[in-house]
């Protein structure tokens, strides 16, 4: 499906979705409680068949966090970027690791670097940092007086 077709089909599913223009691929902004149902739909529906989650990350916009999911379909070769805006003070969202297993590790990474809590994640532990580490390193307000590079 092309960008336009994807946009139209997604609008028919739920008219709450907003779309960001520009960029290579279609960006869809989803309320955080609608993510899980949309993801299930995108994965299971044969017209979408977004079976490959190739990037999962988070962006700190200082006022809020945005989860970014890059999806592609190996069958149809179309791409979609799903974004979820989270509350910066208490970021939480449903896990997608039961749909795409790769999300398990990627979410663990986001959890410890951004402090996003993933509901129903099977094993939400620290992956990279030590257990006693304080703070969320990839957030913009993180300050480390020792190890930071400042140019």
């Amino acid at each position, binding site marked *: 499906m092309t960008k336009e077709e994807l946009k139209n089909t997604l609008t028919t599913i739920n008219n709450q979705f907003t779309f960001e223009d*520009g*960029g*290579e*691929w279609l*960006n869809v902004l989803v309320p955080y409680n609608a993510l899980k149902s949309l993801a299930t739909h995108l994965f299971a529906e044969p017209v979408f068949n977004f*079976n*490959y*989650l*190739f*990037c999962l*990350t988070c*962006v*700190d916009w200082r006022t809020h966090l945005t989860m*970014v999911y*890059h999806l592609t379909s*190996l069958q149809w*070769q179309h791409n979609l*970027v799903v974004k979820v805006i989270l509350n910066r003070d208490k970021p939480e969202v449903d896990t997608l690791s039961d749909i*795409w*297993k*790769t999300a*398990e*590790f*990627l979410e663990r*990474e986001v959890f410890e670097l951004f402090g996003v809590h993933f509901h129903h994640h099977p094993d939400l532990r620290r*992956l*990279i*940092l*030590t257990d006693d580490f304080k703070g969320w*390193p*990839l957030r913009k307000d*993180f300050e480390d007086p020792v190890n930071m*590079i*400042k*140019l």
Partner: protein
Amino acid sequence: MHEVVGTTPKGDFIINVGPQHPATHGVLHLVITLEGETIKKIEPHLGYIHRSIEKMCESLTYRQFIYVTSRMDYLSAHINNHACALCVEKGLQVDVPLRAQYIRVLLDELTRIASHELWWGAMAMDVGAFTPFFYAFRERETINEIMEETCGARLTMNYMVPGGVMADIHPAFQQKVKKFIQQYKKKIDEYNELVTGNIIFQNRMKGVGYLSPENAISYGCSGPVARASGVACDVRKRYPYDVYNQVQFDEVIETGGDSFARYLVRIGEMQQSVRIIEQLIDAIPQGDFQAKTKAVIKLPKGEFYQRVETARGELGVYIVSEGGTTPYRIKFRSPGFCNLSALNEMAKGGKIGDLVATMGTLDLVIPDIDR
């Protein structure tokens, strides 16, 4: 006499493979639950070489951050640089001169061969054969010398810059590459004789570390790992960049899904790389090696994503720009990270020896996983 340390309440045996262990080729730490010698569960613990390159890049300019990325997957530094350069170019919307594109693809493929060479040697060493390691380094050395002449460095080349390549190729580059390719074709046959056909090696590899196509997709595996499970995912074919759409090559796909299939895919890829190089080496057009770009690069506000095929799989560079001289947020989607996440699925139920064979064919580079 002594208390039994490191067992779970159920009496399973837990061993720590790494962070210092010969088979992990780096500081990967795996906590393995064993029952006898059979693996019940593998938990990777990462971060021993985590330098937070993503955070570092946020304070580096678009010209500077490319050099840091050489240190991610140091075995395919060229391809990492290439990905970043392409991503910045996408934001700037500059057209790269054809000559630069040819050079980039040529160096990418040479890097791929060098990386697969090292993998081949290290993998053979993992299953207990020492000699192939030296054979692999013999050929890798030739590539490194070619790289050194043209790029000035052997491992972290930092040769690709936004807009093209940093300098023109060395005058002897084409001739040396052609000579290398001539010799190299025979060497692949030698590899097949020494390792591929060996009955012990095949027994160690066949049916080991099986990854089904569904799992390969679900775990986000890419590169040879996914292609060995029959998943066509070569970025060079699906989303061609630079001159990959102008060259003829096959996407090597095996359906076995086991370690031997992964092995065959990589051997096949070396041959395909040779094929690509042969098509391009004589056809490098004259012209500029770099497009004109401003000294201080400012990317327009927006998000840019570029994926390339490294030797290990699909590398994604995701740049979020606020319009400044440094990226607001940068994310590297590293192939090794996702491939590693499938390790538990692959090695469960096997022996420790199988784990080593599986890890060997995953071709893990730890700085790439940790970033």
